[in-house]
């Protein structure tokens, strides 16, 4: 497996970052939705710390991922993709990159502006505050954090749906090339010779 991206395939590093971040975001989202229902007690504060620590991990990974993409480039759209589809895909990818940066940043801002307690990344390292305690700022950041999450989920659903559409209906390599070679095969087109 090539580590760098080629014109045809995503390399190992981009694949690892893509799927790690995807899994983390789904897990963080599930924790985030569930933790609001927990009784407010120090017994459960570790759940919040876990959500925030994983979120900051995603922030770091996204920065690495964007840097790697700028360095290693991206494969071209699979041959035969209409220009309008490629444009929508690019716009969606760009929006998702922005949102997966904005999600941890808005969460971090919410945490800082709330000023409830110190944040230690997985209990190991003190995370600096990016705002003084500020109730209005905390409210705005929390609102953004929630709304951006649902926008992100809608885009991710479209993104995943498009990948599955390419795989099962277009029967092209769009999905397969984001996975290690041989994990899934591109199904032969019925109209193929």
């Amino acid at each position: 497996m090539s580590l760098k991206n080629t014109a045809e395939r995503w390399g190992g590093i981009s694949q690892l970052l893509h799927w790690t971040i995807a899994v983390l975001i789904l897990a963080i989202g599930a924790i985030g939705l569930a933790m609001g229902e927990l009784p407010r007690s120090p017994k459960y504060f570790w759940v919040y710390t876990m959500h925030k620590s994983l979120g900051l991990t995603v922030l770091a990974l996204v920065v690495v991922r964007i840097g790697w993409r700028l360095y290693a480039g991206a494969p071209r759209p699979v041959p035969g993709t209409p220009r309008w589809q490629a444009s929508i895909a690019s716009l969606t990818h760009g929006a998702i990159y922005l949102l997966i940066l904005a999600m941890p940043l808005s969460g971090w801002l919410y945490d800082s502006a709330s000023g409830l307690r110190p944040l230690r990344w997985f209990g190991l390292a003190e995370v600096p505050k990016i705002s003084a305690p500020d109730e209005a700022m905390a409210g705005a950041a929390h609102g953004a954090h929630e709304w951006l999450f649902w926008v992100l989920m809608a885009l991710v659903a479209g993104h995943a749906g498009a990948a599955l559409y390419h795989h099962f209906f277009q029967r092209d390599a769009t999905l397969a090339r984001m996975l290690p070679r041989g994990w899934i095969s591109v199904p032969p087109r019925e109209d193929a010779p």
Partner: protein
Amino acid sequence: MTIKLTTPAAVAAALAAMLAPAAAAAADYAQAPGSTLAFASRYDGELFTGRFGDFDTKLSFDPARPEAGRLDVSIGLASADTGNADRDSTLKTADFFDIARFARARYSASGFRRLADGRYAADGTLELRGVSRPVTLTFEWKDGAQPVLDGKAVVKRLDFGVGSGDWADTGAIPDEVNISTRVVLKAL
């Protein structure tokens, strides 16, 4: 009012009658706008402060006779505002102030001491969450048209069961809560 000032004794009596209520009134005060009652604590080392917007002070005080002083403060616990809605709503629960059962706290003291540095101390009683315990308020008195009482006290929250159950760990929230108040007073 017609007073016949016919004899020195009558003059003296009239003067005494006019001055006596004035002297008594000068020592009785009610709380004026601009007063604050604040508290400060920490969570996991993170400092936070709060204010009670609803509190009412009645004071009887003559700096020359502190031992005759009396102080009575009533505090609406639901008015605690720490700048965070989650924290404020938690403070209202049974684990903290339990405002459903104990809506108000009361601090009363009678007989103040003059301290060596010119301040005063009131050895009063705080009634909070159904528990009464001695709490000493030390204060500075600033005389004027609207005198100001600048006071500080330390309250041990666990004595009153504030932050009980899961919140009792003093490693997260120290037992001692710092109280500071600035009461602007108007003479009655």
